[in-house]
């Protein structure tokens, strides 16, 4: 299956918030786009340069690169509907 969805998740080290966000996003994406997505997780503590280039102010920040347009959400990434809606994506049901 070709990768249609490309996303970047910025997190901060291993804080509980980062862990929870990562877990939630993985679940949401695999439920919605199993096998068709690629998620890159970037730790701002380890890669501050990448975070600065991407104008990250706080985490968790999720950036959708593909499909266009680029969109980002920040904050509470627990709610599947809100996340997909916020990224301008519609869940495959």
């Amino acid at each position, binding site marked *: 299956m070709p990768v249609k969805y490309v996303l970047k998740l910025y997190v901060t080290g291993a*804080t509980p918030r*980062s862990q929870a966000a990562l877990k939630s996003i993985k679940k949401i994406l695999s439920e919605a786009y199993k096998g068709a997505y690629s998620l890159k997780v970037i730790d701002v503590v380890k890669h501050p340069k990448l975070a600065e280039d991407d*104008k990250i*102010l706080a985490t*968790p920040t999720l950036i959708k690169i593909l499909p266009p347009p680029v969109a*980002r959400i920040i904050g*509470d990434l627990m709610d599947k509907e809100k*996340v997909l809606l916020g990224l301008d994506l519609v869940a495959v049901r």
Partner: protein
Amino acid sequence: MKKLTNKAGQYKIDLQALKESEARFRNIVLWSPDAIIVTDAKGKIEYMNPAAEGVFNRKLESFIGTDFGLALVDGESTEIDIFRPGKDPGVGEMHAVETEWMNKKKRLITIRDITERKRAEQAIRDAQEYAESIVATVREPLLVLDADLRVIKANKSFYWTFQITPEKTENRLLYDVGDRQWDIPKLRELLEKILPKNTVFNDFEIEHDFPTIGRRIMLLNARRIYREGNKTQTILLAIEDITECKQVTELKKALTDLERSNQELEQFAYVASHDLQEPLRMVASYTQLLEKRYKDQLDQDAKDFIGFAADGANRMQRLINDLLAYSRVGTRGKSLEPTDCHTMLGQAIANLSMVIEENHAVVTSDELPTVMADASQMVQLFQNLIGNAIKFRGEESPRIHVSALEKGNEWVFSVKDNGIGIEAQFSERIFIAFQRLHSREKYPGTGIGLAICKKIVDRHGGKIWVESELGKGSTFYFSIPKRGSVK
């Protein structure tokens, strides 16, 4: 607002009001310690207040026009990690509202820096966890009381030691816990009189009869802690049960006393018997001299009397010699070294060769181990046991068999004979010094042999006993620990 009639005036005053309002809100935004970010409907940053630079630890001009993204907030606010280049990450509390401004949808996001608050909260949690883990971990029973002496918490050790459940302890007045078994006058005095004045008391010993666990001796330590935060007092009460400890201490003392008196006694026996020999030798030699020199002047009665006196002196000499031999087991013993028991048995047999020959005795043995022992005492041990076996022989010629069995941490030796045997009721008495079962005329000797055996075995940390039936021979057993050390 004041009603205005003049149209031009109204415009002017409205503008004034607007200006005032604008200034008020501008000030709020400018001086707010929280980062305030205004984005358009799509999340593009339009404005950031000065505080934002502090919160995010950098210049933010270049962020205007970039994508902040859609802030998702669960309920009122959401905690986020703040990325602060050159500084450890912080924690923020993010609020987000949608609003309309000049007919355009805007998003107003505020981020409050709660890094310090979080750190303080964590420090408090850590401290609390630390304190609680101490209370839980200490092996001593521990009670946490409030100012009214109500139990806030008790640790496992308390419940275990005093056989009570948390349900029957927590949130109760200490004196009511466990059928008022803590309503002890001395404890009341400590908690109600001494503690309010001194904040601390140390090592107060109290003794109390508990219905569940009996009489206990306890060592009490308490500390009054004043907590500034909620202006309350907490009392920490540690209760150490020293009943067993005390008993052990007393026992140890008794044991030390006993050991010392035993040593003194041994020393005394040795010195006494040694010093007794000299005057006794005088009695014996002068009696002999009397007999030799005045033989012709004495009548038969006098000769008989001298004979009795000489006999008594001889017997006493033997007793003293035996007593000396007995006390030497303790005082003249050598350190324990690996000793081949087979060789020691051989030596004992050699020492007894005359008696063995006279009695046509046969001594056999299985393979014997090497044990940690005092070699010369092992020889004496075998010699006494085999000697006895021959001395208390039956009608048949004596057959004696020596063997050893490994049993756990020790070797159990046995010396089996076909002699006259011993009645079970005497099987303990025979090991006591100078205790005899038979008359001197029938079996000569003072009755020290087995006492010496017992003392030797005791000194090696073992036990000696006999299994026998009258007329059917006896088997003497003794055990020697493998890792021997002198007792």
